[in-house]
């Protein structure tokens, strides 16, 4: 427990009178994600500056403004840095807001953090009632008092209403299915009257069509359901104490949304309910990835977050002067006369800018020095960065203490972590992430790195690093320092989605092209939002394509047969199993016959063999052994015909090994009494009218059929003879 100062226990009395409980908040000062790597290896995410103020400053200022009286700051990674920051900041001695820190190094997810809070709760009972759950990277100016009141009243009426989450309208891009904040498109279903959350689903990339599956029972139990895809989850939740115990009970809940919300929605036994609250006029957003870092920065500069804007001192920051076109400038910034500072730019204290510099849409921190003829566009330069003459920086993030030597170029999407040095005239390729620390090699060590006790950790890495640096010449030019991180496999395509850089034009064109292609197949128009009545029939329920089902069924049967052969299971049992499958997939016994035969033949083909005769031997042995199983399903003529058709199909499949053996195996099946002559003859009759191409096998076994016909005639005669004998 670091520094639990009772700094400002004096809470204004009238606030106390208004509400019986203290308004409390839990602030998760760790995102439990790795999206801000490599920057977060050296500094916790909540302390990263956004428009020159650490993110947590925005969150705390907003919580204070919204009337929260006590905040528990939950620190995980780099806890010491966070506590140090808070101790130095005004927040520890704030008259209206008591800030307490909670340290835990074991927690690796939001779920763990809340479980830890719950354990603490047993000892100290810090959380007295409903609380606000936010993460330390939230930028908002929404009023909370009404929302908390609403939640409390609802809770009084309905014990099960344990959480209210704030949502905000934000249209997602029709092309990339991605919100402004770079998160995946969100589908939610809400009861329009009670605002109860019924369904929550984040659209994944493999699902670009924008379809959503709702449970039928949802429509049965609710007279109307509002499904929308233009909502953004603000990750601001008003929770009742039950939420903590729910996390304790369900130890596998890790993620607040993916596990907890979905878990609560699915669970009918406890019957807990989650409600939504749509905010309209105020702003709320969470900085989840580099894209949202860019977007939220722009929103702050555009003053959507008022009064948390750079020209107001809201969190111990020195206010900047706001000029025309949204240019914020520190009063002591030194600008050359020929420097051109364009719209929506921020220039921090003590920054020097040389001749002919062009700055547009960028944020430049405190104490930077920028040489002459530098171009900076859409970039975020943090504090004490040195940029030498003639550099070009576009859509990049440059952390504290970086040196960019003359003539270097940063291509869009580059992230330079702390103290990196970019060599002279070096071109840093697009989307690369550069750090003085080497990229953790495996995923496991990866986890440890970020969540290890980082106070000593960072120093260790750095000392170890110096050794490595000498052995390996820098990847950033001869006079540079830093490692370019490899992009993780699979994530390469995604890189543009979450980067600070705007989506490149060719990528957009590609997506547009893809969508156009899709449009020719079928229309994929999804209305942004619409109300569905329960009698509407347009809902895509669990009904799947029957063809798909047959494939699955066939595979299952194949697996079963294979297992039966390997483990030498009794025929009865296998029959039982296949029957079970038949019922569960809603198949007919003809399908079973086909599938069983298919799997038997497949087994024969898969068994190693050198020649056709060997293959025949294999097939013969299998058929002989398992004819009973097959026999169970081929009791009717139709089923037998199905088997022959299946066989024919198989013969046509590559590698066509079975083709030449068609007649032989057919004969074998006849001999073993699996197939009756009627079936074969009927099949022959059916095929007689087919195309020439289809008749290949019919011709192959012409003689056999001829023989069959004769035999049957003979038999008939025999029968007659026998009858005569009687």
């Amino acid at each position, binding site marked *: 427990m670091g520094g639990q100062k009772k700094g400002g226990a004096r809470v204004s009395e009238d606030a106390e009178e208004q509400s019986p409980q203290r308004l409390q908040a839990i602030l998760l000062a760790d995102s439990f994600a790795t999206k801000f790597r490599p920057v977060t290896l050296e500094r916790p995410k909540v302390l990263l500056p956004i428009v020159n103020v650490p993110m947590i400053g925005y969150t705390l200022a907003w919580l204070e403004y919204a009337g929260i009286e006590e905040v528990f700051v939950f620190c995980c990674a780099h806890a010491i840095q966070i506590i140090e920051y808070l101790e130095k900041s005004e927040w520890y001695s704030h008259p*209206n807001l008591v800030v307490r820190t909670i340290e835990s190094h074991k927690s690796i997810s939001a779920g763990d953090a809340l479980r830890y809070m719950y354990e603490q709760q047993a000892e100290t009972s810090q959380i007295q009632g409903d609380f606000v759950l936010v993460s330390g990277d939230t930028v908002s100016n929404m009023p909370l008092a009404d929302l908390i009141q609403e939640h409390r009243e609802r809770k009084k009426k309905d014990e099960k209403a344990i959480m209210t989450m704030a949502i905000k309208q*934000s*249209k997602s891009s029709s092309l990339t299915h991605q919100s402004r904040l770079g998160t995946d498109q969100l589908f939610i279903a809400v009861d329009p009257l009670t605002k109860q959350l019924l369904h929550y689903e984040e659209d994944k990339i493999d699902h670009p069509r924008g379809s959503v599956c709702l449970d039928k029972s949802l429509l049965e139990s609710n007279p109307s359901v509002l499904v929308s895809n233009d909502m953004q989850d603000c990750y601001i939740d008003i929770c009742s104490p039950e939420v903590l115990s729910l996390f304790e009970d369900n130890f596998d809940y890790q993620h607040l949304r993916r596990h907890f919300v979905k878990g609560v929605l699915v669970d009918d036994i406890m019957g807990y309910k989650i409600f939504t609250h749509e905010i309209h006029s105020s702003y709320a957003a969470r900085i989840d990835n580099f894209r949202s870092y860019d977007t939220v920065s*722009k929103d702050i500069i555009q*003053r959507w977050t008022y009064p948390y804007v750079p020209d107001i001192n809201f969190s111990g920051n020195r206010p900047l002067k706001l000029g025309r076109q949204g240019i914020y400038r520190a009063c002591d910034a030194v600008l050359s006369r020929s420097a051109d500072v364009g719209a929506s730019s921020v220039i921090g204290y003590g920054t020097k800018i040389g001749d002919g510099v062009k700055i547009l849409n960028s944020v430049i921190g405190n104490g930077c020095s920028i040489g002459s003829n530098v171009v900076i566009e859409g970039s975020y330069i943090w504090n004490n960065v040195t940029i030498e003459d003639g550099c070009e920086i576009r859509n990049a993030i440059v952390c504290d203490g970086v040196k960019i030597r003359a003539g270097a170029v940063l291509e869009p999407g580059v992230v330079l972590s702390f103290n990196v040095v970019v060599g002279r005239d070096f071109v840093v390729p697009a989307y690369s992430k550069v750090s003085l620390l080497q990229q953790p090699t495996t995923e496991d060590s990866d986890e440890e790195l970020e969540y290890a006790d980082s106070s000593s950790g960072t120093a260790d890495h750095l000392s170890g690093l110096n050794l490595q640096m000498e052995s390996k010449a820098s990847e950033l030019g001869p006079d540079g320092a830093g490692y370019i991180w490899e992009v993780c496999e699979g994530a390469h395509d995604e890189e543009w989605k979450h980067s600070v850089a705007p989506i490149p034009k060719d990528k957009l064109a590609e997506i547009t092209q893809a969508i156009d292609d899709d449009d020719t197949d079928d229309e994929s128009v999804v209305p942004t939002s619409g109300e569905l009545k329960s009698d509407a029939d347009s809902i895509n329920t669990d009904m799947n394509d029957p063809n798909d089902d047959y494939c699955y069924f066939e595979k299952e049967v194949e697996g079963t047969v294979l297992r039966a052969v390997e483990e030498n299971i009794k025929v009865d049992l296998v029959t039982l199993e296949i029957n079970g499958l038949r019922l569960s997939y809603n198949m007919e016994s003809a399908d079973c016959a086909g599938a069983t035969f298919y799997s038997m033949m497949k087994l024969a083909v898969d068994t190693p063999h050198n020649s056709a005769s060997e293959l025949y031997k294999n097939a013969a042995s299998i058929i002989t052994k398992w004819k009973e199983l097959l026999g169970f399903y081929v009791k009717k003529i139709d089923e037998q015909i199905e088997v022959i058709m299946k066989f024919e199909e198989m013969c046509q499949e590559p590698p066509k090994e079975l083709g030449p053996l068609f007649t032989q195996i057919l004969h074998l099946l006849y001999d073993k009494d699996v197939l009756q002559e009627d079936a074969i003859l009927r099949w022959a009759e059916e095929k007689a009218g087919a195309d020439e191409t289809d008749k290949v096998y019919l011709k192959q076994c012409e003689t056999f059929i001829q023989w069959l016909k004769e035999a049957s005639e003979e038999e008939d005669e025999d029968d007659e003879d026998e009858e005569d004998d009687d």
Partner: protein
Amino acid sequence: MPDVQSMVAEFVNKLRKRKIEGSQATAKCTVELLRSVISHQRVPHANQAAALIDAVKAVGQQLVAANPVELAVGNVVRRVLHIIREEDLSLTTAAMAGLDLLDASDDDDIDNCKGIGYPAMSAAVVAAAARSTLRPPSLQTLLEGTPESATVPYTSSSGADSESKSKSADKSSLTRKLKHDVIEGVNQLIQEISGCHEQIAEQAIEHIHQNEVILTLGSSRTVLEFLCAAKEKKRSFRVFVAEGAPRYQGHLLAKELVARGLQTTVITDSAVFAMISRVNMVIIGAHAVMANGGVIGPVGVNMAALAAKKHAVPFVVLAGSHKLCPLYPHNPEVLLNELRSPSELLDFGEFSDCLDFGAGSGSLQVVNPTFDYVPPNLVSLFITDTGGHNPSYMYRLIADYYSADDLVM
């Protein structure tokens, strides 16, 4: 002491977060805070006035820095400083009147008076002389003729003078008396600020006549009281209220006016020009009145003023004395505007697809300024709690309220 400190911190915090709005409320809070600062300030035996001034200035600087846009804070701080200086002066003069002997230190003062002085001059004369050298004589002081009047401005040269004199005066009684008098003066200021609406409203009957049409924009408590006062005096007139986009405070004003039985019509801001020909007088409330007679008011006011000028309609500005700002708007530091959140203009959700997707295409920008500046030549009349004034007279009025030393804090 920590009590005052935390009170200051809390108020600073409120100002910073823009939690407190409206110049009257801000002014009142500020003056009440300053009163408690003064009453808690320990005064040394020597230099009491300077100690008080320092304390008030220190707090004042914090407050002004917290929200430089709210000029009323600075105004009130300067008023309080002025009161301290003035009380100090009157005390010294009173003390000196009781003394037959003059200290040699008076000579410094006389030197300052550029040769007017004689060795055996009364303090009152000294003060009057100081005043006459540093300021043009005001009509008021000329008419009153008595230099002891409360409106006597005071300058630093006299401050130095009082310091030295206080040594010879009866220290203990003086100390108590100064603080007491200052608090008394601040109390008067509080009363003045809270009573300014009534003072202004009393004059309504002289300005609003039967069957007139009055136009106003946005919402101002002063304007509301003014109109209602005229209504109470059985004047019948009509009011047009321009709604004051984007905050639409005009709607609230219209509601209040109707509740009080006035004939009210709401128009859009953009309809002001169309309606102005039917209007007999435009009355608006100011955010601040600058020393040159220019007005900072709610956004859209300049347009209304131009329309009034075009149609020769009197443009009347109501302002309590706490809104009189001793600064000139040439200074970019002073002509501040507050850009508020664009969400007052348009809905973020609806427009979220135009607000930069990272697609690099042009994105929508929204600017939402709070204030407008009306140059003095468009203003016909100011009505303050002391009566009606010409824009060109504002500098004079301001000189009566503020001491020249406090202009830069």
